[in-house]
C-alpha cells in the first residue's frame, strides 16, 4: 500500500504547475518557426500549396516507395514488406492486349487456315487404296503415351482458355454462379492435370526422341513441302519432318509449360519477387495458347485431314499402302525385318490413277 507523503504531494503539484506553464510554450512552437506559411489550426483550409515549400527531409526515402522499397514488417510474411509494385498494371495489360488478342488471332487463324486447306485439298486419301495388309506402327505403350499427353493437354488447354477468355466469352451467357463453378473446377483440373501431362511428356520423349532426329530424308521432304499441296509423296522414315516439328514443339514448349506451370502452382517457391511470377505467368499463357493453335493442325491431319492416319493412334496398326506412301523408308526396314504381313482386311481401290497396287 502506498502512503501519500507531503514531499510526494508537493512534487506532484510542482509537476502539474510546470506543465500548465509549459503548454502555452508548446502552442507557440506550432506551427514551426521556419514554416512556409504560419497557419494555426481552425483557420480555413488552404486551397493551394505555397510556392516556397521545402522538400521533404526524407524525400529520397519516399521516392523509393513509388516502386520497389521493401521494409520490415512484424507479421510472419516478410514479402508483405514490399510497399508498391507497378509492374502489375503492365502485366495485366500485356495479358489481355497481347496474349489475349494474338492468342485469339492464332487460334482463329489456324481454324480458318485448316478449313481453307480442307476445302482446297479435301481429305488426303491413300492413293493406291487399302491393301488389307496391316503393319504395327505403334506399340500399345506408345498409343497410351500419346493419349495421356493428348487428353491431358486438351484438358489443360481448354481450362486455360477459360481463364484467359472465359470472362468475356462464357460469363455473359453462363451467369456468374455457373461460370464461377466451371472456372473453379477448371482450375483444379488444370492444377492436377498438369502432372498427367508431364508424365505423358516424359513417356513420348523417351519413346520417340531417337526417331525424331534429323535424317537424310528431311531436306528433300521440306523441298517438296511434304507433298501436302502437290501429288506424290516424298520418302520419310518413321517420322517425317512435319511430325518431327510437332514432336520438338511439344517437347520444348511442353517442358517450358511444365516448368512455368510448376512455378505458378507453387507460388514464390522458386522466386521471391512478384515481377518474376508475373513474367512466368505471361510465358505460360502465351506458350499455352500458341501450342494449342499448333496442335489444332496436328489434330486435323491426324483425324479428318488424312485417311487412315487415325488408325496409327487408335489400334496402332496401319495399312501398309498408307505407310508406303508416307513412311516409305520405315516400311522397307519393317518388311525386311518382319516380312510382308498377310491380308486381313478387305482391300479398297484408291483414287491414284497411276498408282500401282502395292504388291
Amino acid at each position, binding site marked *: 500500500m502506498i502512503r501519500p507523503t507531503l514531499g510526494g504531494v508537493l512534487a506532484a503539484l510542482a509537476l502539474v504547475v510546470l506543465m500548465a506553464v509549459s503548454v502555452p510554450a508548446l502552442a507557440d512552437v506550432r506551427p514551426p518557426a521556419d514554416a512556409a506559411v504560419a497557419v494555426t489550426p481552425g483557420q480555413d483550409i488552404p486551397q493551394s500549396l*505555397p510556392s516556397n*515549400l521545402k522538400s521533404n527531409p*526524407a524525400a529520397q526515402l519516399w521516392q523509393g516507395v513509388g516502386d520497389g522499397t521493401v521494409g520490415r514488417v512484424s507479421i510472419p510474411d516478410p514479402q508483405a514488406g514490399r510497399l508498391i509494385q507497378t509492374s502489375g*498494371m503492365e502485366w495485366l495489360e500485356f495479358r489481355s492486349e497481347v496474349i489475349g488478342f494474338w492468342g485469339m488471332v492464332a487460334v482463329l487463324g489456324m481454324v480458318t487456315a485448316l478449313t481453307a486447306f480442307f476445302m482446297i485439298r479435301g481429305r488426303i486419301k491413300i492413293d493406291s487404296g487399302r491393301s488389307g495388309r496391316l503393319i504395327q506402327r505403334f506399340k500399345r505403350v506408345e498409343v497410351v503415351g500419346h493419349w495421356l499427353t493428348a487428353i491431358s493437354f486438351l484438358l489443360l488447354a481448354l481450362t486455360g482458355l477459360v481463364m484467359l477468355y472465359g470472362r468475356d466469352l462464357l460469363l455473359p451467357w453462363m451467369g456468374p454462379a455457373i461460370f464461377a463453378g466451371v472456372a473453379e473446377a477448371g482450375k483444379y483440373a488444370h492444377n492436377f492435370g498438369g502432372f498427367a501431362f508431364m508424365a505423358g511428356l516424359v513417356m513420348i520423349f523417351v519413346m520417340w526422341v531417337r526417331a525424331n532426329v534429323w535424317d537424310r530424308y528431311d531436306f528433300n521432304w521440306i523441298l517438296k513441302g511434304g507433298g501436302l499441296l502437290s501429288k506424290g509423296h516424298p520418302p520419310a522414315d518413321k517420322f517425317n519432318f512435319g511430325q518431327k516439328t510437332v514432336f520438338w514443339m511439344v517437347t520444348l514448349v511442353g517442358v517450358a509449360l511444365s516448368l512455368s506451370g510448376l512455378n505458378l502452382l507453387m507460388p514464390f517457391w522458386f522466386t521471391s519477387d512478384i515481377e518474376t511470377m508475373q513474367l512466368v505467368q505471361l510465358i505460360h499463357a502465351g506458350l499455352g495458347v500458341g501450342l494449342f493453335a499448333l496442335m489444332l493442325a496436328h489434330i486435323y491431319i491426324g483425324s479428318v485431314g488424312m485417311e487412315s492416319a487415325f488408325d496409327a493412334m487408335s489400334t496402332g496398326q496401319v495399312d501398309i499402302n498408307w505407310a508406303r506412301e508416307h513412311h516409305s523408308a520405315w516400311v522397307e526396314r519393317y518388311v525386311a525385318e518382319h516380312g510382308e504381313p498377310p491380308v486381313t482386311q478387305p482391300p479398297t481401290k484408291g483414287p491414284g490413277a497411276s498408282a500401282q497396287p502395292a504388291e
Partner: protein
Amino acid sequence: MGKMAFLCDGDRCIECNACVTACKNENEVPWGINRRRVVTINDGLADEKSLSVACMHCSDAPCVAVCPTNVIYTTADGVVLHDKDGCIGCGYCFYACPFGAPQYPQKGNFGSRGKMDKCTFCSGGPEETGSQEEFSKYGRNRVAEGKLPLCAEMCSTKALIAGDADVLSDIFRQRVVERGFGGGSYGLTESRKQRT
C-alpha cells in the same frame, strides 16, 4: 457520398500497429491474413519511417480489371469489394495489385489458395448488410452504421485517415502547409491514377 480512400501520413506514423490489431479484431480476420500491415523502412536507423498499408480502394482498380470471374467490383462510394462465392483463388488480383492487398488462406498447396481476402473499408460485402454471413465472410460493416474504418478511427497520431478523398487531401494539404514541406503521404496519389 464521395469517393472513399485511405491516406497514410508517413511523417506521422509511429509503427504502433494499433491499426493492424484493430482491423484483425473488428473484422475477426482469420489466422495468416493481415488485411492491414505496417511496413517500416530503414528500421532502426535515424531516418526510420513507417507506413500503414492495406487495400487502397483504387478508382481504376487493376484487380477489378483482371479478375477472371469478374467478382471484384467498385461500389458507388468508390470502395472495392469482392464476392467470395465466385472467387476461384487464381491469384491474379495479387499479381495485379500495386499494394499487395489481396491475400489467400493458403499460400502454396498446389495453388489452391482458397478465397481471396482483403480490406473492405469496413463496409462488408455483397451479403445482406449486417447479416452473420456478411460478417463471417467479409467482416464488420461499419460504414452502414455511419462509422469509418476502425483502423483510421483509432489511429492515435492520425497518420492513417479514411474518408472522402477530397476531404483527405484537404487535411493533408493543411498539414503540408503547416510543416512547410510536402511528400510523405502514401496511397492517395497512387490509388487515384487512371490507367491508360
